[in-house]
């Protein structure tokens, strides 16, 4: 359940940004979460409700945009989508690959007044 610690970071960053912008209302916070980031979106939503209580974020919506994972084959250099870490190269069958994206864990934007 490291989603709790991660959510605390989200709340920290969002509140800091809101203060910087002199926001009076926060409508939503949007995250970009890679398919292989190792966090469970439902757990984030659950923690968010708890962590945002009694802050300017209370009642705001956490929007999670999932980013699909892609890898490049080390043997034949094909780029391909990864369903999970066990997906092999569709061109040559090799399992050796480098991750191109899909581990992202980022706050993308906020909607404020």
């Amino acid at each position, binding site marked *: *359940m*490291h989603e*709790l*610690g*991660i959510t605390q*970071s*989200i709340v920290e*960053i*969002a509140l800091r*940004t809101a203060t910087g*912008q002199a926001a*009076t*209302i926060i*409508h*939503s916070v949007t*995250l970009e979460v890679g398919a*292989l*980031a*190792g*966090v469970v979106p439902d757990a984030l939503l659950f923690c968010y409700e708890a962590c945002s209580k009694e802050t*300017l974020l*209370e*009642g*705001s*919506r956490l929007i999670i945009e999932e980013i699909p994972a892609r890898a490049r084959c*080390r043997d034949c250099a094909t780029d391909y989508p990864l369903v*999970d*870490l*066990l997906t092999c190269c569709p061109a040559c069958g090799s*399992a*050796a*690959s480098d991750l191109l994206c899909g581990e992202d*864990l*980022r*706050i*993308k*934007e*906020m*909607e*404020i*007044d």
Partner: protein
Amino acid sequence: MCIDCGCAPTDHHHHHDAPHSHEEHTVQRRKTISIEEDILAKNNRLAAANRTLFADKGIFTLNLVSSPGSGKTSLLEMTLSALKNEISFAVLEGDQQTANDADRIAATGVPVHQINTGAGCHLDAHMVGHGLEHFNLDAVQMLMIENVGNLVCPAAFDLGEDFKVSLLSVTEGEDKPLKYPQMFRASEIMLINKIDLLPYVRFDIARCREYAERVHPGIKIFEVSCYSGEGLDEWYAWLGEQVSAKGLMVRSKG
């Protein structure tokens, strides 16, 4: 609520305490600000600071991760007892509660500091940074960090270590690398522990190696028993090489 302006009721928690006319409503004032900030950035920054410190001092650092009970503390006890006269160690022990593991390490005579994470299910770089304050780092060649027993969360947190080392014991089933690929992907080294129990359990070592190789091509694997000592010499030899290589890097820096 404000169905006509298109904002969902949940968006509105603080909104309607003060009366307002619809002209000045959010349609005009509401704005989207781009942030693009990495949520783990703070941990990664602190991990980078730890890594720099280890590089400056020439300290080779391992982060031991596994499910609870696969033998991290036992591996440390064996390793420290065997090598403490050749290598000067320090140990950081992460546990949710109790100092049991730290007491076991202290019994070997090696400096140890306990970090209780409480409800936390992993160590983070900040905890490790403060844990380091308890050692004279100039006298340390190798730091061992025993992470909290948990195959999921520690994978996401860089502590500044040279390598993560996953332990997997033969009582856990050979498919662990497939079930927890994140952890085995993050680990450069895997130890298969408790091989003394192989006659009594159904565990296919060849298949386990194959699974690990699938999630982490090139992963280095040791087969050991912390009970009989089998296989540990190879592990010790590898540690010795790594420690001297890291020490040399500092000396050549002058």
